[in-house]
């Protein structure tokens, strides 16, 4: 892996634990899908993204997403890890399929806005899944091979590959992570606080040649 210059982050499952119910409700109302997709909020969210290319009607999805944001609990190492990454000079961008309103609410609620150079969501990027990642890359003139995308789902791994960036697994649930490891992510971390060490290790390995 080459030097890591940037980190693209989907808040759902990478910065905070989101509830499942609002995403299931979106699926139920928009697609008539019933049943639980996954035990995790992130699993439900990505499963929903797998089913749809666009959220419409927007107001309904937005309202439920904001409900999810309001119920999300930030991981305890999110703030220290972001602060350390920013201090290391790593480019940090939100690249999310959430709505503009939901990402804004999430960043405001947890006072995270200052950590990110840019925030790309489905409204300002014009799409979901890989679209916000591609916009974030081009906006910051980052080479995809120097960028990682954090994810804890198979869909996330596929989306990262589609955008040409390295998928890094957030191993939130060991059993799920064991399954996901078979999809050949570029790496995996148990916790966000390991990302700075990850980046330092890559840098040291490249320096060593």
């Amino acid at each position, binding site marked *: *892996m080459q030097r890591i210059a940037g980190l693209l982050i989907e808040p759902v499952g990478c910065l905070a634990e989101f509830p499942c119910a609002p995403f299931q409700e979106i699926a139920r109302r928009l697609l008539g899908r019933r049943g639980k997709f996954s035990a995790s909020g992130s699993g439900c969210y990505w499963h929903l993204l797998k089913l749809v290319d666009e959220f419409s009607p927007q107001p309904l999805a937005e309202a439920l997403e904001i409900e999810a944001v309001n119920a999300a609990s930030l991981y305890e190492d999110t703030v220290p890890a972001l602060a350390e990454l920013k201090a290391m000079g790593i480019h940090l961008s939100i690249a999310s399929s959430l709505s503009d309103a939901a990402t804004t609410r999430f960043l405001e609620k947890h006072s995270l806005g200052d950590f990110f150079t840019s925030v790309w969501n489905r409204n300002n990027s014009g799409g979901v899944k890989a679209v916000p990642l591609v916009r974030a890359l081009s906006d910051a003139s980052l080479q995809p091979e120097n960028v990682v995308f954090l994810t804890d789902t198979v869909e996330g791994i596929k989306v990262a590959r589609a955008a040409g960036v390295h998928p*890094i*697994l957030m*191993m939130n649930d*060991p*059993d799920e*992570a*064991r399954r996901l*490891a078979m999809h050949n*992510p*570029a*790496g*995996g*971390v*148990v916790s966000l606080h*390991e990302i700075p*060490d*990850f980046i*330092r*290790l890559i840098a*040291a*390995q490249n*320096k*060593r040649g």
Partner: protein
Amino acid sequence: MKKVSIYKPSTVDEAIQILSQHGTSAAVYAGGTDLLIRLKNRLEQAPSYLVDIKKIDHLRYIKEDAQGGVEIGAATKLAELADSRLLQERYPMLVEAINKISSPELRNASTLGGDLLQEVWCQYLRGGYSCWRNGGYLCYGAIGDNSYYHSAMGGRLCYAVYPGDAATALIPFDARAKLATPQGVKELSIEQLVPGDLMVDGRIQSHVVRFNEILTSVVIPAPKPGVRASFEKLRPRGVWDFAMASLAISLQLRDKTIDDARVVFGGIAGRPWRETAVETFLKGKTLSAELGEQAHSVALVNAAPLKYNATKIDMAKGLLASGLARLNA
């Protein structure tokens, strides 16, 4: 097994020169009970150049120093430590720990330096998985079977436990390690020598020794008056295995009053885990039958077990109670 070249330097300076020349693709070879197995297991991280230090003079000895302590050459065999009358008299707890390392056959080959600086024995690393220590970017132990050889006290990329017993047993004696480096001799406490998973020369390793440095000796200060010490180890099998949990404890006593304490757990974290909260708790207390139960409640409160290894914490706490009971007997 990959092709390797072996150098046989006759001095430490020569060995350092060779190590400097080959960078991280070279490694010190003494007992070989860790290094050769990594080569045999075809690990990507295994070195291509072995610097055999067995023929270097003054690396294999046990001698009393001028301050009443003992200095042990890093290439001294574990069996020689176990048989040493000097160590048996001065530091019986250390000898007890050494006798619980591996098997008699392996103690005849393994060296003190090798035990201190050995690679972790995570089954995923040793099985050739592409993990943090073997050219990859993921800890399989964190998400796989972590019942035996993984940390219950958190981790930093790699979650394997530090496997050595000698370090755990040396810390209560405030032992120090001497390293030969291109810049001269460097001296560190054992805690500084093996601080757990960290990046050194672009690699994840448990110790701070750089690619061109050699551990040459360990110095144990003279035993303090009134010190009683104990080492206990729980293994998946009764013999010949790494610790599920171990405890090295020393108490400096004035009658039954504890003036000072050292409490170090092994087999539960990426480094020998010095439990200062228990040490502080013990200071000033009277050694009694009830103390173990009380110390139990303040021990390892920051434990962060993985999915299958919470039992390590119970074991470690049990060892603390039994260790204190043993010292009270």
